[in-house]
């Protein structure tokens, strides 16, 4: 957690520390007698155990719904309402020599009329989501980084006023813009297209703000040095600033990707044809069309949640940093 502070410009996090020898002296002077030391250690043991107990209990509450989800996703339909979470048998199908729980095969197997009479194309939804999220992320990170470069490293009249305008739009409720934006999409003929999903997501005040925060912390002398070497603005941006703001780029990439992967309102109003549904819309559709098939739905939910959890566990360092930085000045 302490690493988060290193990015913030002009903020010293080092507490005024006593020279080590003086601290050592103080420790010796304040040393409690032996019997008190032991009771303190014992108390410490109890308090730490208690702490683990409380934290463990909260963790359990956090995890249990997911455990139920996982276990239900491999159950046969008849056992869904059972108080026993463990399935009595797990029906598996051999796929490429590996046993796969039948429910997961059924979710993807949209040609099987017995299970999936409405032809839900789960694999398709998956691909759509990733496709849209990847494009939107790429574009948003690019436009944000460029705008942030302009705001953080270039000097031009009216720059700071412009940035303030950007900042203030972050406070606007997105809902106000939804209806007009939809009308704009209709007039551009982009309803029910991926372009209509990607393009509005390609610009963001938040991304610009976040990237600016990162770029401000890069020493200004680099720009001057590069300029003396005869590098243009674009080369400076592409070869020096962008590589140096990599942690920021990664953070923004994760944020944007997750945001678009989970995006619900906009795809819900924009998408008409089932073949273009993204995962959240597809899941909703799955639930409303076969609400009774809880076991299949849970397999689908697992399939959409597990990649997120894995991604989070792998990349959480950047995320935590980004969230804490993004709120420094709202």
């Amino acid at each position: 957690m302490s690493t988060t502070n290193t990015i913030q410009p002009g903020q010293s996090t080092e507490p005024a520390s006593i020279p080590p020898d003086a601290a050592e002296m103080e420790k010796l002077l304040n040393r409690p007698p032996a019997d008190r030391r032991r009771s303190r250690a014992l108390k410490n043991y109890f308090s730490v155990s208690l702490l683990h107990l409380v934290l463990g209990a909260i963790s359990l509450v956090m995890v249990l719904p997911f455990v139920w989800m996982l276990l239900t996703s491999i159950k046969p339909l008849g056992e869904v309402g059972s108080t026993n979470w463990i399935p009595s048998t797990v029906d598996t199908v051999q796929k490429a020599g590996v046993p796969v729980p039948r429910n997961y095969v059924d979710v993807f197997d949209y040609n099987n009329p017995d299970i999936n009479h409405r032809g839900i194309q789960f694999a398709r939804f998956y691909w759509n989501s990733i496709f849209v999220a990847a494009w939107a992320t790429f574009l948003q990170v690019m436009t944000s980084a460029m705008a942030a470069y302009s705001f953080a490293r270039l000097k031009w009249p009216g720059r700071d006023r412009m940035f303030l305008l950007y900042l203030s739009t972050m406070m606007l409720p997105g809902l106000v813009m939804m209806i007009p934006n939809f009308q704009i999409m209709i007039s551009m003929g982009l309803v029910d297209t991926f372009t209509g999903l990607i393009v509005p997501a390609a610009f963001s005040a938040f991304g610009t703000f976040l990237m600016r925060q990162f770029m401000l912390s890069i020493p200004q002398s680099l720009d001057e040095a590069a300029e003396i070497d005869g590098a243009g603005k674009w080369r400076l941006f592409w070869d020096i600033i962008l590589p140096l703001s990599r942690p920021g780029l990664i953070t923004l990439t994760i944020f944007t990707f997750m945001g678009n992967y989970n995006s619900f309102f906009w795809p819900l109003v924009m998408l008409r044809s089932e073949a273009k549904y993204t995962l959240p819309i597809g899941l909703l559709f799955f639930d409303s069309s076969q609400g009774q098939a809880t076991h299949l739905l849970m397999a689908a939910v697992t399939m959409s949640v597990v990649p997120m959890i894995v991604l989070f566990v792998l990349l959480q360092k950047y995320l935590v940093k980004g969230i804490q930085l993004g709120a420094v000045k709202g």
Partner: protein
Amino acid sequence: MSSSRSRTIRNVGAGVAFLMPNLLGFLVFTLVPLVFSMVLAFSNWDLKLHNQYKNNSIHFIGLDNFIRLINEPNFWKFLGNTLYLMLLMPFAIAASLIAAILLSKDLRGGSRRMWATLLLTAIMVGSLLLLMATGQGRSGMVIMMASLVASIFIGGALGGQTVYRTLFYIPNFTAGVATMLLWKHLFNPQSGPINSVLRGPLVSLTDVVRQSPSSLIQSGLWVSAGLIALGAWFGLRRLRKAWSDGDYGSNAVILSAVFLILPAVLAIFWSPVPLVGWVTLAATVCVTLWQLVIAIRGRDFHGRPWDGVGSSLMTATSLMSLQLVVLGLGIACYHLPAMAAVSDGLTPPNWLTDYDWAKPAMMLMGFWGAIGSNNMLLYLAALTNVPQELYEAADIDGATRLGKFWNITWPQLAPTTFFIVVMGVISGLQGGFEQARVMTQGGPAGSTTTLSYMIYSQGFEIGRLGYASAVSWMLFAMVLVITLFNWKFGNKYVND
């Protein structure tokens, strides 16, 4: 001279060129829609009246949309729903603060030996449960739970803060349609695990309620009335002290006092025994007058009228939420004997399909996700910035843990809290659409329809574009008030 001038021009050119892609998008998808939406709000554009078959003209209707909106009872109901759901906020913020404080403690406990002991404890707990389980019928379930608990403990003992933090944050990270669908099925009255867990304890509770005299249980209503008055006293006393010290201005105190007295007023309307409500109100009024007398007899107030309004409102509204919960529990106590007297006894609620339980169910889900939210991470970062010397000084003065929290941690975290509260209010006003659309479709009978869902259903389902825009501008106005409030008082509060 000329070279520096051409450099400036080049700089402007580069600055604008780099900004251009983003600026274009900003203009097309933010600024234009904003103006467009404003125009829409004053028009009668309705897709039912203006389409390829019916070509009525779209024209300005002035404030008609807004007048219609204010006269529509549903608007007020949906606004009420939105505010109801926001009552979760103080609890969510408190939970994430507690989680952050717990996580910021040194989990290693210093010695390596203790670490090993802890690990052994975890394994022993696990294996003990395993042994217990082998003799029982539903062994699988117990084994699973025991190994789950043991693995959490082992993970926690080995990884410390990071492991717990990750586990806490997962619900927030995965939040979305998938988790909402998961909760929808967890809440399922027949097959959901929540109700199957609740059923057992409720049967025994039914027995207890049936055997004990009903007047005893119903007196819970009186207890809650006392607690509400006590809460008002506690809050008002705090306000009064800060008022005399000059921390809070008089307007801030009056505004906050209104929130503290509000639950007592609501008790008159909601309490099944009107007398209880009146007594609560009387007690609260007495407390108010008492504090007022003390305040006036004390020294003069040197705070400016709006000083400390953010902090005092935060305290007052948090206490108010607590009072309202207590009131709800008291009313539940009153109805309990009658509910248990039915042949089925007490049964778990129908959650999302029940008019009264749908909102609490959503709040429960929200609470689950809110403990380990971004707020927790913000608090964690803020906690590391609290100067350690303050605690050391307090230790020398012999301060208690609670004293250290209220006098050091809480004031030091105030800027973070203020930021979290403002952001929470802004997003809370706009919130509730996703869960309503996924879990209840705004039902039953509109009990989970929030303002954002109203905009969606009016604008995109019914097609009243002008009317929906008017709703969105009402929402915008509310958000703007909060934002202005933040600008006016936020900085001052943070600098104090």
